């Protein structure tokens, strides 16, 4: 008590200087504390990471560890990709070389699942082993697979390219020897997208991991066709194991470097040429030709590549006809851009339903883009319109049970709803689409559905079927979000929904792209389009979709009479009036555009597959697809390309270990949000306790050290005292 009183009294007697000292002391303590915590945190992190690695490394005997097909413990072959594109006018020829390098000392089989543009007509495969080049042959899918397996069994090198989805393919390479490289080259033809005055060439480089709905099928097929994916087939996605390649765990380094090199000959002077998401080096060459390469040489295959160019004012093509004569057959590619509509009529009152995907794959950059786009879309709503927002992941959550009128209250509520959106969980798209397409008919309004998603699902066919069945008088517009959206699904969904699509790959693009889309969707500019040819043709698509502002009519056709010539007439309804355009179709002589025939065959196959989805007999469709694909050397759902080296190289009896090559998670997506569908189930408790204990231990050491130092002073003093005592004693003596 007395001591306390004294301390109080002393405290009361403190001067300003003393308080300043205390203040400084406090500040210094805080600074020092922060520093110490940081250092300790780092130390603990290093120690703990090692402990953790050890923990997962030596899983107890007899327990079951499920990992990817390789157990994640074997080194898989490495992959390097070189892409060369030759762009000429409206078409592109692309060569994709995948070099499989086996750094291990064992024989390996590499399996790589990769994306290609959804319109790619893959018609060529070759395999390079050292100096030898082996050409691939197109075969029916099962036969190609058998050929490949037989070659593998004989110890021959072989490669196989199969189509899983129109924009998703698998390359398998058998018998890559130790330290050996096998290069597999794939070539495809594609027509370029022309929209609102610009051309775009999109090359997908990553796959947003696909969500697989449904429950696992009981029977596991012992079939060799079984995929190397990470998800077992389900009742809704029978080939789930073929479209779910293992994904690189974050922090373990990106894989699959890609180099891109483009020769661009647009055929007209350009006002603008740029890569949308990558840094590129552009060299201009004579005659409005350009050479484009990635500025950094090679980049990890982690986000889609897009090159866009805009013709100079006045140089933009209004219409174009390309023809190819091959084996006595004649094919044509036709592109017509309807003139821009005069002042559009004020949009009728609309009913707009926004569907927004808030599944785990949207976490990260994608959800920000989606929210931004939604906020912009809300701003564009007019009084008199009605609207609703439906959010979905594992569950579907509508803002309102039915569309509500636009007013200050509902808009404020909608903005709050959008702000509160968080991306997590599965991608159960079916219930969300059912909800959006299931509302009762309202009388006057023009009904639109705007769907924002990355399309990362495995059950595309089922969803497209639902859209076609339930659409009614609505229009469905898709907005592809994120670094690697499923373009096949998004474009097909817009087509089935009689709407149009747009891609937003960066939050900076939201304003421009949404603005363009929102203007477009106010009304289609050209409907009921009909094409009259001067003679018999087989043209695709059979029924032309409605056109929105800035979009061209694009058709491919086979002319029944190779000598056919004369005008092609297009007719349609524009702003309530009939609109026509005439194009000359030149034949004989003229420029031959190679690849038009392949594009036509690819369009034919797409039309057949659409018919199959709509209930056409599967057997007949299959037969026709196979015939078309074999004739044009095309990869399709039912045909694959296979290349076999006839010289056996692997020692007899070699069983090459199958390795599924991992793919990068697209940039800006969240691994844990996609794969950690489960909550985080470890508290930082142990970490905090260890860090705390370490800090206290260090403090104790410092304190002990200081006491020791003081102890030395005591000894020193003691020596002096003894010294003095000795002197005194001697004097006394």
């Amino acid at each position: 008590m007395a001591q306390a009183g004294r301390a109080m009294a002393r405290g009361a007697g403190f001067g300003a200087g003393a308080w300043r000292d205390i203040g400084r002391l406090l500040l210094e303590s805080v600074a020092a504390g922060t520093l110490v915590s940081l250092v300790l945190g780092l130390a603990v992190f290093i120690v703990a990471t090692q402990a953790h690695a050890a923990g997962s490394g030596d899983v107890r005997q007899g327990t079951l560890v499920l990992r990817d097909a390789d157990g994640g413990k074997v080194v898989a072959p490495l992959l390097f990709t070189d892409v060369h594109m030759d762009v000429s006018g409206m078409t592109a020829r692309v060569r994709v070389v995948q070099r499989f390098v086996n750094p291990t000392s064992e024989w390996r089989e590499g399996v790589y699942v990769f994306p290609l543009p959804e319109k790619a007509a893959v018609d060529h495969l070759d395999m390079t082993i050292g100096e030898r080049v082996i050409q691939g042959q197109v075969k029916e899918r099962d036969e190609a697979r058998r050929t490949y397996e037989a070659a593998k069994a004989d110890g021959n090198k072989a490669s196989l390219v199969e189509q899983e989805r129109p924009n998703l393919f698998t390359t398998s390479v058998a018998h890559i020897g130790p330290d050996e490289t096998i290069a597999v080259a794939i070539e495809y033809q594609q027509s370029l997208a022309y929209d609102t005055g610009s051309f775009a060439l999109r090359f997908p480089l990553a796959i947003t991991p696909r969500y697989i709905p449904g429950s696992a099928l009981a029977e596991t097929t012992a079939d060799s066709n079984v995929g190397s994916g990470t998800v077992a087939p389900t009742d809704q996605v029978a080939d789930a194991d073929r479209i779910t390649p293992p994904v690189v765990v974050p922090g373990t380094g990106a894989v699959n470097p890609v180099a891109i090199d483009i020769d661009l000959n647009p055929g007209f002077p350009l006002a603008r040429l740029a890569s949308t998401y990558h840094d590129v080096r552009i060299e201009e060459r004579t005659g409005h030709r350009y050479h484009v390469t990635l500025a950094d040489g090679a980049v990890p295959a982690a986000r889609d590549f897009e090159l866009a160019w805009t013709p100079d004012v006045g140089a933009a093509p209004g219409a174009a006809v390309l023809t190819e004569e091959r084996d006595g057959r004649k094919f044509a590619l036709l592109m017509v851009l309807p003139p821009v509509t005069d002042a559009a009529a004020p949009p009728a009152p609309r009913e707009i339903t926004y569907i927004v995907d808030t599944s785990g794959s949207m976490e990260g950059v994608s959800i920000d883009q989606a929210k931004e786009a939604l906020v912009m879309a809300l701003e564009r709503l007019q009084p008199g319109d009605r609207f609703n927002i439906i959010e979905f992941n594992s569950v579907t959550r509508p803002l309102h049970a039915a569309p509500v009128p636009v007013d200050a209250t509902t808009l404020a509520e909608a903005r709050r709803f959008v702000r509160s959106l968080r991306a997590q969980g599965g991608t159960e798209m079916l219930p969300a689409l059912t909800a959006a397409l299931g509302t009762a008919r309202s009388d006057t309004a023009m009904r639109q559905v705007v769907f924002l998603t990355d399309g990362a699902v495995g059950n595309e066919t089922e969803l497209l079927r639902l859209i076609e069945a339930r659409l009614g008088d609505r229009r469905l517009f898709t907005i592809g979000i994120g670094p690697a959206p499923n373009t096949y699904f998004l474009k097909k969904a817009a087509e089935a929904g009689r709407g149009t699509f747009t891609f937003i790959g960066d939050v900076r693009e939201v304003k421009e792209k949404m603005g363009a889309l929102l203007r477009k969707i106010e009304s289609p500019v050209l409907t009921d389009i009909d094409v009259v040819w001067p003679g018999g043709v087989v043209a695709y698509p059979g029924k032309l979709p409605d056109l929105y502002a800035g979009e061209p009519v694009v058709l491919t056709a086979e002319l029944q009479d190779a000598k056919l010539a004369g005008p092609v007439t297009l007719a349609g309804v524009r702003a309530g009036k009939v609109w026509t355009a005439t194009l000359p179709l030149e034949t004989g002589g003229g420029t031959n555009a190679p690849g038009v025939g392949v594009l036509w065959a690819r369009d034919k196959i797409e039309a057949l597959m659409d018919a199959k989805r709509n209930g056409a007999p599967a057997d007949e469709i299959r037969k026709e697809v196979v015939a078309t694909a074999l004739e044009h050397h095309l990869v399709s759902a039912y045909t694959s390309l296979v290349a076999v080296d006839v010289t056996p190289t692997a020692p007899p009896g070699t069983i090459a270990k199958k390795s599924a090559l991992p793919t990068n998670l697209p940039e800006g997506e969240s691994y844990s949000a996609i794969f950690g569908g489960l909550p985080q189930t470890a508290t930082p408790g142990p970490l905090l306790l260890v860090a705390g204990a370490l800090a206290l231990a260090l403090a104790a050491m410092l304190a002990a050290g200081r006491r020791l130092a003081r102890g030395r002073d005591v000894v020193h003093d003691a020596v002096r005292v003894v010294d003095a005592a000795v002197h005194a004693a001697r004097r006394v003596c």
Partner: protein
Amino acid sequence: MNSEATAVERGGPFDRAARAVRVAMDAAVRGMRPARPVESSPLGSGRRNQRLLTIAIAALVSAGMLAAGSGGYLYAKAAAGQALLHWAWARGAANGTPVKPWPWADTHPVARLIVARQHVDELVLAGASGRTLAWGPGHLDDSAPPGAPGNTVLSAHRDTHFRFLQHLVPGDDIVVELVDRTRRHYRVRDVAIVDVRALRIPRDTAVPTLTLVTCYPFDAVMPGGPLRYVVVAEAEGHVRGRPLLASAAAAALR
């Protein structure tokens, strides 16, 4: 001291002894800190450094206490939460509706999990957000409600409520008490350590199923690893159904 005093009186031997002591002490001092003034102590020369040292020690002590305290708080919360939940559960029994364990709670108990052999009696909360899991095991909203057909998935922290999972073996009995106070018995069928990448938990199992998930390894210091410890139990009296853990390597489970 006594002997020294005597030595002083003796004169000669004292001198020798005193010199010896001095030499020894000098040597000791040199050994520890070769002839330097106090001010240049290696742990801090002068008052300033002494003060810095004090600050460092104070900072370490506060950081250590804070870290250890927050760690301890997590466990205290885990224990206290369960106590409050048991009380809420007992109250809920009286009026038949779910009762919030504390007035501002954003969750409520949905079931009681009992594993007699492990002396486990825990209340399960609705939802499995980080906030919920601090207090008790959470029920994943998108899985079957406890007691309903399908797969009921519960999740909890490996270092608190689900630490006992490591001791469960196939054949163990797990009891789930529902809101209406009926009890369901489940029998452990599979125990597996899986990489979260390869893990998919089906929601519509043919046999009513209870799946308990926590992080693995149990004793790891760092949170956030990719491995999960999964215990799959099936309702008693049902025939084996479809595979419960679907994954590329699911076959390895059986």
